[in-house]
């Protein structure tokens, strides 16, 4: 169990983080402040349910035809990190970012 379980886990949907400048976010703010951006990544293969399996079958045997159907769960934030605030380079305006960074990930 041990080895296979661990290998599977490392590919699974997890929370990762990266240390960035606020300006790296591309939101148009001018500031020298920084943040930890947390995001969800990884596979959701192990979270496939019967629902996903049925959708998969229906699209393959063409009982359902739509490009908007996603027959696999997706690794996405299921909770967001606390707000982030920072002072603009004008040294008088504060900005607050909400729901900008993941706190918990899930296959949804």
């Amino acid at each position: 169990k041990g080895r296979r379980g661990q290998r599977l886990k490392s590919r699974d949907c997890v929370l990762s983080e990266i240390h960035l400048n606020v300006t790296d976010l591309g939101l148009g703010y001018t500031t020298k402040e920084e943040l930890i951006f947390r995001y969800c990544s990884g596979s959701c293969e192990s979270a496939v349910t019967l629902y996903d399996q049925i959708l998969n079958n229906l699209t393959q045997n063409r009982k359902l035809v739509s490009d908007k159907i996603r027959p696999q769960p997706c690794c996405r934030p299921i909770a967001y990190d606390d707000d982030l605030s920072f002072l603009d380079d004008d040294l008088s305006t504060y900005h607050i970012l909400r729901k900008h960074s993941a706190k918990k990930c899930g296959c949804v």
Partner: protein
Amino acid sequence: EPVISKGNNCLDAAKACNLDDTCKKFRSAYITPCTYSVSNEICNKRKCHKALRQFFDKVPPKHSYGMLFCSCRDIACTERRRQTIVPACSYEDREKPNCLNLQDTCKTNYICRSRLADFFTNCQPESRSVSSCLKENYADCLLAYSGLIGTVMTPNYLNYNNLSVAPWCDCSNSGNDLEECLKFLNFFQDNSCLKNAIQAFGNGTDVNVW
């Protein structure tokens, strides 16, 4: 470490705060009410003060003092330091009351009364002591000073070139109490114990205490 001291210590402290989950959370928890305009007011001052008190209560001094007492060499740094408490909401007001009247207002509130008393006890200057403080304890003086932030006695830095601080009040219209008023105001503005305590924290020269 001359390379580090040349930088903007207040900016570095703000960066460090946002990389720490607790500091980041309580920082935006006060920035939000302190910058949120309500009806025709610039903000809800009561909520801003409450969140500022929580910030200094809950965030470890390493981060909270780091932003409030950072040492500066240029105006970008000192202005950032002055903005720490969001003075447009927490500090400034349409009118500047007389300091003794403000002191009376403070005394009607339990938190303000006890924190002001702490400040007068723990930041009492003493010219004959090495530290310039009667109590010889910078940490207690800084704790008492930061404790006033979020009360009607909220102090802030007055200008760019020194560590002079004061609450939002002056001594005009003091009448016979002018001397008493100036004594009160100067305890903030011209207090060598408080200045040395802030300087020692900013320079990291009193590290044993933290």
